């Protein structure tokens, strides 16, 4: 099976709120030198891909659209076990929305050769739009199953566990398919070995521009956006937590009194 995993490089999303700053001119988070990471669910997606490869054979490629810095995300993907990587990077892509990004990713994936499976994260760790994966499926004209925690395969037919409110659904489909992946105990991302990090650091990774991919200029960039971010604001956070004093029994008694005052129980 040939698998492509779409990875996005983002500022570490687990950064505490106290260190979060806004850049008002771009309506984006100010990078401030914070560490850049692979968006967490994309690592889960890569783990799913690597396990499928280990079981059934095939290849895994990682692809990213973004700044030249995203090369390091791709290198990590290679170090984890991907066979191939490609970066789509072009100033013409700046300011693109999900439709522009998906248009570029679709062309990049086609250039790699249409795979059996395209995997995305269920949501990115910064904007969490949950749109790039499903739009990419449309652009590639393949079916999409979203919020998938687990994938099993037999005879070119895959079974996907899709998490929903009441529990989960099991979906079946034949490749080509696009899946958006949710974290799960079965896809906890592996740590790359030092040796593999070294090897990956020496690999050359192709960088493709929009023109290399034949992406229509009118489909990408700020001029093509369908929605605009007008403003980014910081929600006000109040901190007025009342702490209970004393030994556990005392703490619990006071808590119950306070809860009754608040009519919470």
């Amino acid at each position, binding site marked *: 099976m040939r698998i492509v995993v779409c990875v996005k490089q983002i500022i570490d999303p687990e950064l505490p709120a106290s260190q979060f700053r806004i850049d008002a001119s771009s309506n984006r988070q100010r990078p401030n030198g914070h560490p850049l990471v692979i968006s967490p669910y994309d690592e889960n997606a890569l783990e799913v891909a690597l396990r499928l490869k280990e079981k059934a054979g095939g290849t895994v490629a990682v692809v990213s659209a973004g700044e030249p810095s995203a090369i390091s995300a791709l290198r990590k993907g290679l170090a984890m076990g991907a066979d191939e990587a490609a970066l789509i990077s072009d100033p013409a892509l700046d300011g693109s929305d999900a439709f522009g990004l998906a248009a570029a990713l679709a062309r990049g994936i086609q250039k790699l050769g249409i795979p059996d499976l395209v995997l995305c994260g269920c*949501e990115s760790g910064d904007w969490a*739009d949950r749109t790039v994966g499903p739009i990419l499926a449309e652009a590639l004209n393949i079916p999409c199953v979203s919020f998938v925690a687990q994938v099993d395969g037999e005879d070119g037919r895959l079974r996907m566990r899709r*998490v929903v409110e009441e*529990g989960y659904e099991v*979906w079946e489909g034949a490749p080509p398919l696009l899946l958006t992946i949710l974290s799960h105990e079965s896809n906890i991302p592996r740590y790359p070995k030092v040796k593999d990090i070294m090897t990956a650091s020496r690999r050359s990774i192709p960088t493709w521009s929009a023109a290399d991919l034949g992406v229509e200029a009118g489909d990408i960039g700020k001029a093509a956006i*369908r929605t605009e971010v007008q403003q980014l604001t910081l929600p006000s956070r109040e901190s007025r*937590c*009342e702490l*209970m004093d004393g030994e556990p029994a005392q703490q619990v008694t006071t808590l119950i009194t306070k809860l009754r005052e608040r009519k919470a*129980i």
Partner: protein
Amino acid sequence: MPGIFVFGTIENGIPSRSTLELLTGAQRLAAGLQEGVSVGLLGPGDGASLYRYGVEAVYRANDPLLKEYQADLYLLALQRIAQAAGAKVLLLPGDSLGRDLAARLAFRLKAGVVTDVIEIDIEGPEKMPRFTRPVYGGKAAAVIVPKRFPVVVTLKPRTFDPAGPMGQGKGKEVPVEISLDPAQARTRMAERVQEETTGVKLEDAPAVVSGGRGLGGPEGFTLLVELARVLKGAVGASRAATDAGWVPSSMQVGQTGKTVSPDLYIAVGISGATQHVAGISGAKTIVAINADPEAPIFKVAHLGIVGDYKAILPPLIAKCRELMGS
């Protein structure tokens, strides 16, 4: 034509809770943009109850293949009825259904898409809708405006109050012809599995007791289940707990998981990452039980106990049991 279009669902003859939440958003948009409201229904189910909520028209595609959810077929039908309704703003729930459909529907309609909206207002003389949504794991909020219509919008569940009855209660049903072919479904649902621990739905529970990594293992959840049972509530979890496999993924509360808005939310052994807190902003009273006085959860909780949950929960369960007489 009514330009505000809600993708609705009917449960037991009445609009579902999520549909009523969408109708609140729809009424706001309709007033601001001077448009009418229509609802699209797929499959069987009587839509007459919708007219009491200011709905002018119900567009229905009724094909036997729409009885069970299947994305490819739903998308074909939704595109058809949205076009028939002349939809300008399409509202979908931000739950697993809307998350599966919204972006693909937008692609097919050449529309914009805004997801997880928590606030809607209409701006100034141009009368453009402004949609607010959390971004960066809840560390910021973005105000987003469409640059074109139509625009597909999902509303974050349990954020808008359910709509109340309004208007004269009259409307018309418009059947939309569609004939689907089973071959158009490229995937197939083989199985659906329910995973509830206490019998009360997490989203509907008046009290939610959630556990995180601090519980140290799946055994810790037995205490939480006990407390939830006494409070007639439900059990939730942080992503760390679901990722560890201690409890099912469907119990995850937060940005990726569920939004809950109970009267009482008790977070046990949960640090209070913004992505978790994103799922509980509607909770009236938040209680934190955490061993670390510096844990960020104490910045959002109303009441807190610093301590080991193993020492706190047994007396808490006993006291609550006394009080609730069960």
